[in-house]
């Protein structure tokens, strides 16, 4: 019997305690929790008030050294394709076209002064796949590929997560390809015309190799 009454007493007191807590929070709703960061001494003291952040309007700033969205500074890219090979999830897709000798000037140099020898018409990063591991960033010889501090890049359509960084349009790329093919055909012809003597030795192999214009 005493347990019966002690149960009633326990439930009454616990309900009163719980309701006092919720009522305290209800009246504290006139306050907002402060914006003290973890560095502030007041961080653990700001326990009262509303804590909802109305996200798109109010956001906690991301740290300037944050590593979130992958970005390629295509002006510095030399088209070495090391990032593509290093990426564990294959989120980077690159196509390169070798520059013709007269285009070297137009292709330009990296900010480090290195001569660029490749056009990069396609440099696609599938941000939806990227897991921000940073391996691509570490292998990049010109430091043109890095993670930025942009943390919110959500999209309604997953197709919009594919980011294009190429430095040539499709038409330009076609023109460059054609130019390169012409130059290589020209070089092959000249080579064949100039050196008749060395031709016989690798003749069976060399003839099919030259057709796609892959002589390096």
């Amino acid at each position, binding site marked *: 019997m005493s347990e019966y009454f002690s149960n*009633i007493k326990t439930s009454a007191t616990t309900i009163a305690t*719980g309701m006092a807590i*919720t*009522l305290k*929070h*209800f009246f504290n709703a006139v306050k907002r929790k402060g914006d003290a960061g973890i560095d502030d001494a007041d961080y653990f003291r700001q326990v009262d008030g*509303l804590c*909802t952040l109305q996200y798109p309007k109010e956001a906690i700033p991301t740290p300037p050294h944050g590593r979130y969205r992958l970005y390629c500074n295509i002006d510095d890219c030399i088209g070495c394709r090391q990032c593509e090979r290093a990426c564990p999830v294959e989120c980077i897709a690159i196509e390169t076209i070798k520059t013709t000798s007269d285009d070297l000037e137009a292709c330009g140099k990296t900010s480090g002064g290195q001569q660029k020898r490749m056009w990069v018409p396609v440099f696609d990063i599938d941000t939806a796949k990227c897991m921000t591991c940073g391996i691509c960033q570490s292998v990049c010889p010109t430091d043109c590929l890095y993670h930025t501090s942009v943390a919110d890049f959500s999209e309604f359509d997953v197709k919009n997560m594919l980011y294009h960084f190429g430095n040539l349009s499709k038409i330009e790329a076609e023109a460059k390809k054609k130019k390169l093919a012409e130059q290589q055909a020209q070089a092959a012809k000249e080579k064949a015309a100039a050196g008749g003597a060395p031709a016989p030795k690798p003749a069976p192999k060399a003839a099919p190799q030259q057709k796609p214009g892959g002589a390096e």
Partner: protein
Amino acid sequence: MSSSPSLNTWSDALSGFSIGWFPLGLVIVAVIPLVFIALYALTYGVYGERKISAFMQDRLGPMEVGFWGILQTLADILKLLQKEDIVPTAADKFLFVIGPGILFVGSFLAFAVLPFGPAFIGADLNVGLFYAVGIVALEVVGILAAGWGSNNKWALYGAVRSVAQIVSYEIPASIALLCAAMLAGTLSMQQITLMQAGPNGFLHWFLFTNPIAWLPFLIYFISSLAETNRAPFDIPEAESELVAGYFTEYSGMKFAVIFLAEYGSMFMVSAIISIAFLGGWTSPLPNIGSLELNAMTSGPVWGAFWIIMKGFFFIFVQMWLRWTLPRLRVDQLMYLCWKVLTPFSLVAFVLTAIWVINH
């Protein structure tokens, strides 16, 4: 039925008003509580509860639609109106459609005997309190119709739980109200309120004139939570384990009617507890010497204000409890009803009887 000539004048005049054969006044008398339920359910019930629950949990609640989200309810109504009104093919169509109607009628019929101030009451029955307690039982039929008609196991579980709960809790609730009826010596809502009216304001209320009244007051309040399916007694709804209990299959406006019925009965039980123990439409302010605060804050309009405010206070307490306490288990619920509230209500009944005889 009225004891003094001023009592119920407005409602009597309104119900006598008719255009030709058409009793327009009677329709208006019926529509006034309906409009009141709709307005209060939309503002205080839906928007207020969201905000109160949010503030109690350190959240903001609706903020996007209108300033501080005040148009949120309007957006909700538009959404509910657009929703397809689905009737499951395997459902018992008649019961399914009529269920929410019975539910709403059950809570709305009790408004007939609620005095909205000294001059306005739908029907001043001499068995008003008895009628109000009895008509709430109609909700059980509505819930059972909705749950059975849905042809869904969750809905049926919710409905059966609800019947077990509401039928059980009507016993302590009725005995607790019987204490108030015994103190007043009448069952008429206006007469019970008049018994608690006086120049000293809240000192005339049964809760403060009687040393035992707090016990039936508490018992009725706890039981009323169970009767309106409010937390912590919301096992018929049980959105976590039964999805939504007896209204799992409802959509669109039928769902809205079910919630309107819930908010209607929330106000009804709050008004009944204010009438039975807290003086209904009487002003809480006492006359202090020559400063006649009580006389200044009495009258038909003030009466409506006071009873609505008292009802709203108890609705706030219901919401406050809802966002504090977890849901009870079925066995805990039955334990509380049969082993705690019922014996205590009987004790309160006997003590009140002794007090009434010796006073």
